[in-house]
């Protein structure tokens, strides 16, 4: 029997969290490299439609793991359900996205099974018999290849944007779905979660944005934010910023990109006057294309830029807005 890789997809209210496609793409890549069999699972209450959605992709099997106790997320119930399921399946490798929800329960689950999690990985590498997982250290200043020093199952979470969700391979036919009922004993759930809500002030979800225009210290003054907003509007994108801009109150905190803000993976990330401190980079390096405008040619943002403009943003942005408008009008 070959070894098995099991992806645990994330769903919220019966809808697949699209970051799960990235985890599935990671699973497909590891399967291709190792020859291990790729399976997927979704856990919750009445999540059959999510299982069907995943079954359309190139996976050997999808498990629909259900219990009424899983309707509301709690770390106790999710950990207990997965422990029961994984103990019976014994996969070699268990992959999950590094979401806030997964971060909340996966260390508990692994500990309950006497195992460890290599968390927040950005890649993997096969090295002889070993599979090494690459994660960032010291806020991205270094990378480390990390191996497991324990028995399976091995738990790994992948950083948002580490793999391309849109590159996940479709299957030639729908994968079989196996329904698994897990029993969660009375009294196991100790936390009482209440309804999820947004703050009265409308918070923006930049993770879904396809185009982001982001400003850093190079914007100099609060009134100049308007210029970046005009560019974002012309492009049909969202405005965002690095931490110092939000700390100064020039843009609200929910527009902040980086390790203490949102992690985004848009088609275009246009960085205006952003130096590219690592705390910022970790939040946007998953962008498909990065365009950076900065007058300092040594700014680290250029290390990860596809297109670089070394120059004064106040000279370049006004004609850029005009050209974008012209291009849009011509469509």
């Amino acid at each position, binding site marked *: 029997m070959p070894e098995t890789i099991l992806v645990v997809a994330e769903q919220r209210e019966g809808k697949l969290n699209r970051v799960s496609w990235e985890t599935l793409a990671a699973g497909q890549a590891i399967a291709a490299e190792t020859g291990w069999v790729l399976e997927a699972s979704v856990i919750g209450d009445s999540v059959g439609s999510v299982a069907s959605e995943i079954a359309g992709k190139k996976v050997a099997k999808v498990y629909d793991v259900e219990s009424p106790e899983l309707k509301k997320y709690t*770390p106790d119930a999710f950990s207990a359900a997965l422990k029961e399921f994984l103990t019976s399946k014994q996969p070699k490798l268990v992959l999950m996205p590094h979401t*806030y929800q997964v971060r909340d329960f996966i260390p508990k689950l692994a500990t309950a099974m006497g195992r460890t999690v290599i968390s927040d990985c950005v890649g993997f590498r096969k090295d002889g018999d070993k599979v090494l997982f690459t994660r960032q250290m010291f806020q991205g200043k270094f990378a480390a*290849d990390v191996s497991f020093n324990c028995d399976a199952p091995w738990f790994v979470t992948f950083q948002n944007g580490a793999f391309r969700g849109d590159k996940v391979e479709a299957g030639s036919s729908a994968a079989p779905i196996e329904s698994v009922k897990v029993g969660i004993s009375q009294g196991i759930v100790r*936390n009482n979660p*209440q309804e*999820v809500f*947004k703050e009265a002030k409308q918070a923006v*979800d930049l993770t879904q944005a396809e185009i982001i225009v982001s400003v850093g210290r190079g914007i100099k003054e609060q009134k100049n934010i308007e210029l970046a907003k005009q560019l974002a509007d012309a492009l049909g994108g969202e405005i965002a910023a690095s931490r110092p801009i939000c700390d100064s109150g020039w843009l609200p905190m929910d527009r902040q990109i980086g390790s203490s803000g949102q992690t985004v993976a848009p*088609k275009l990330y246009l960085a205006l006057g952003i130096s590219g401190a690592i705390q910022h980079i970790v939040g946007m390096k998953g962008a498909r294309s990065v365009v950076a405008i900065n007058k300092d040619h040594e700014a680290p943002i250029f290390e990860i830029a596809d297109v670089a*403009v070394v120059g004064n943003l106040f000279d370049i942005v006004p004609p850029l807005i005009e050209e974008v408008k012209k291009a849009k009008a011509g469509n």
Partner: protein
Amino acid sequence: MKILVCIKQVPQKDAPLKLNESGTWIREDVSYEVNEPDAYALKEALRQKEKHGGEVVAITAGPARAQHVEDPGFVGLDAFNTARAFAAAIKDEKFDLIFTGLQSDDYGFAQTGVILAELLGWPHATIIMQIEKSDGGIKVKRELEAGYFQFVEVPLPAVLTIQSGINKLRYATLIGIKQAKNKPLRKVTLAEVQAAMSANLQKIERMYIPHKTKKTEYLEGSASEIAKKLVDKLRNEIRVL
């Protein structure tokens, strides 16, 4: 309430870091400071003490320059072993709450607090923005993704990982942390807790400077030429126009 705060030291933010000779860790001859997320946890613990009375105790693991769980053998522990050392070190004390920072600026595991909760058999909640006492326990506000939040009732004792935005750190907070040097200190040796520990379950094989994966194209010319070239790229290569 008796609150334990888990604190670690990390290299100072602007410290120039170099790899060690074996390429498995950094050279340790740099200046250290309190891991910033842990400073938020400590500040919050002190705030809770002001409100409800009680006691705040800090725990940290490391060589001589740190306090409490003190031995060079505590260097390079994975999150599982750090949590096991802490659990063993506090086994004779009764805490109502344990706080940790969200994650550390060196490893960035974001795991130690949750593992500690599981080892102690306590409930936990992560990424906490607000803490209120309630009947029989606490009510906490968790930050979720995409601007969402959730209140969760948690019975005590419990472990919470604290989000940075929960309070405003001031320079005075860090001074306050330094003054903790004058507080009573219990040193825990490796021998006291070693029985609870094991070999690390994960191992850093190699550490290195990340490879540059992108090829960068520089656009040159006058501002209007650059604007034209850039729009051409946005349309034909990046395809967002």
